[in-house]
């Protein structure tokens, strides 16, 4: 049976841009009513960019208001309502998963954005979710194509503290934890220009998986790459170069942000706390519902979906269930 709504069944002369515009208008109406997108709204994918081995960015057209309301650290629930054969997916295929926005392309009439290279295609606002193939479901997402549906709702959750003028930001990522770190750097630079110092450390398993390096180089005063196998940058974990970096900054004026696997974030946060600076982590946990209903994303006595994903380092370090792989 042919489902006309499935992307694979569209006519050859189908106007994808008209559909994108209509869906973006629908998002705008929902957003203006509720201040967020509360129900999954499917959008046709505008573009898929391969960033690295098994890492792809999915670009979606959204109203400028929604992109402007997004704050680094927050997440959207993302859902592919069809399987890769264009059949309706129920029960056995793709579930809805939380992803933080990795990048935003803003048109020139939209919110203030000083990174001119990121002006949106066709003058329209787009958000990009950068997804790493970590299993069946995320793998399916990395193999999606222009025109496929991706339903989103959000933004949900807590955000990183806004940096103030004259402060220093240290950003430490592991793997796909690069995405919220990039948005944090981008927002800080857009807001404060040269009145903020940004130092980033990005850890990857190997050179083939490295991504966002050029984007971060543009935004940061210093960028250090580490790889587990030494195929790019420093051979080792992000904690190795972090030691010297922490000694080079004024702790009272510095905030450390991190995102990545918990076994990486735990020592990173501990080092920040030991050196006397405030620090925050964007947590990633199994997060099926996003609305404080299922109770399956607990860290200590907090819900990652609502009390997080951004949580303070001091608090996280005091939790028994923080620091292992989940």
């Amino acid at each position, binding site marked *: 049976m042919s489902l006309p709504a499935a992307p694979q069944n569209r006519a050859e002369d189908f106007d994808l841009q008209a559909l994108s515009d209509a869906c973006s208008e629908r998002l705008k109406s929902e957003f203006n009513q509720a201040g967020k997108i*509360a129900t999954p709204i499917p959008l046709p994918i505008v573009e898929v960019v391969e960033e690295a081995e098994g890492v792809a960015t999915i670009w979606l057209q959204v109203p400028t208001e929604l992109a402007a309301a997004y704050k680094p650290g927050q997440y959207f629930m993302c859902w592919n*309502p069809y399987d890769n054969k264009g059949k309706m997916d129920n*029960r056995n295929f793709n579930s809805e998963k939380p992803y933080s926005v990795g990048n935003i392309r803003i048109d020139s009439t939209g919110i203030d954005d000083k990174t001119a290279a990121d002006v949106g295609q066709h003058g329209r606002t787009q958000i990009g979710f950068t997804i790493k193939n970590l299993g069946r479901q995320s793998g399916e997402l990395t193999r999606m194509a222009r025109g496929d549906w991706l339903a989103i709702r959000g933004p949900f959750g807590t955000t990183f503290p806004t940096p103030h003028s004259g402060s220093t930001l240290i950003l430490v990522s592991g793997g796909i934890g690069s995405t919220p770190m990039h948005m944090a750097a981008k927002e800080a630079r857009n807001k404060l220009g040269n009145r903020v110092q940004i130092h980033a450390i990005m850890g990857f398993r190997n050179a083939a998986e490295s991504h966002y390096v050029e984007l971060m180089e543009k935004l940061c005063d210093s960028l250090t790459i580490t790889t587990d196998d030494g195929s790019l940058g420093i051979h080792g974990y992000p904690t190795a170069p972090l030691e010297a970096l922490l000694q080079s900054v004024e702790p009272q004026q510095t905030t450390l942000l991190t995102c990545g696997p918990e076994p990486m974030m735990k020592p990173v946060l501990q080092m920040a706390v030991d050196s006397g600076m405030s620090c925050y982590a964007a947590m990633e946990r199994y997060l099926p519902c996003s609305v404080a209903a299922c109770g399956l994303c607990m860290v200590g006595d907090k819900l990652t979906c609502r009390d997080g994903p951004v949580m303070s380092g001091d608090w996280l370090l005091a939790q028994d269930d923080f620091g292992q792989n989940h």
Partner: protein
Amino acid sequence: MAELTVEVPGLALSNPLMLASGIQGGSAAALHRVAASRCGGLVSKSIGPEKREIYPGPVCVEAMDSVVLNAMGLPNPGVEAFTNMMRENEFSKPMLVSIFGPDAESFANIATQMEDAGATALELNLSCPHSKPGSRSLIVGQQPELIKEYVSAVKQAVNIPIYAKLTPNTAQIAIEAGAALEAGADGISMINTVSALEVDPYAGRPIIGNLLCGMSGPAIRPIAQRKLAEVALAMRRGEIPEAPILAMGGITTGLDVARFIMLGASAVQIGSALIYGDVATFGQIEKELGDFMDVSGYKDLESMRGIALDSMEGLN
């Protein structure tokens, strides 16, 4: 200050505001988190014979203003893990333990294990509207004979009070309430979610991963009130045995709680409101209820209970 405490079989509540089953309460951490709020009591997630994973998402969404749709699929850690957790934890609020199973024997087995682990009262989830079509858990709550079979089996297995949780998706809910009470239930919990379905016109398919779903939120409150009145009036008329009712469906304010108490509820359960305001909602609702009772001159819940039924006594 109005007195808000209330006692129902097996549970001494500091106020009538209980967590509803299925929201958050599946683990020690989640239950402690809710217990630390101003709720009067807890209801666990429905616990079955074995661990169950959550359905593929979307599992729970605010589909429109005042409408929450969900199909979680009864995710739970299983009776063994849950009873171990109960033995290792003491909660600061009384807990009604919700259970479900594939058949009456399984219900009775789980009930026994919960009683052994210290449960003081059980809620029997007879009415999950989003189970697979044709499964027993879909039909139990809609078939009075099966309700009797299940409730009797549990009643014979345990000494602690049991509450039968009813589905609103039947023609005459007083019939199901009567079946549960005649089979020995000590109280009624009502209502479970209203069966529902929502389609996204662009995607051309239902927006919930499980396709079928249950509806909750403020939009179902008038439905819940109608069902509650039908059961409470049947009790008043002596058509079914009298028993305390734990009522729920779309409660978000103190005035909503007053509405349910006035329709005969002893206490209420609150679920979807936590999606809007999380556990802090309990404190807000408690204050609103107390303020309303003070300004209206109700000294306690009993003086308010059932008064809205008076005008409806002659109704059929």
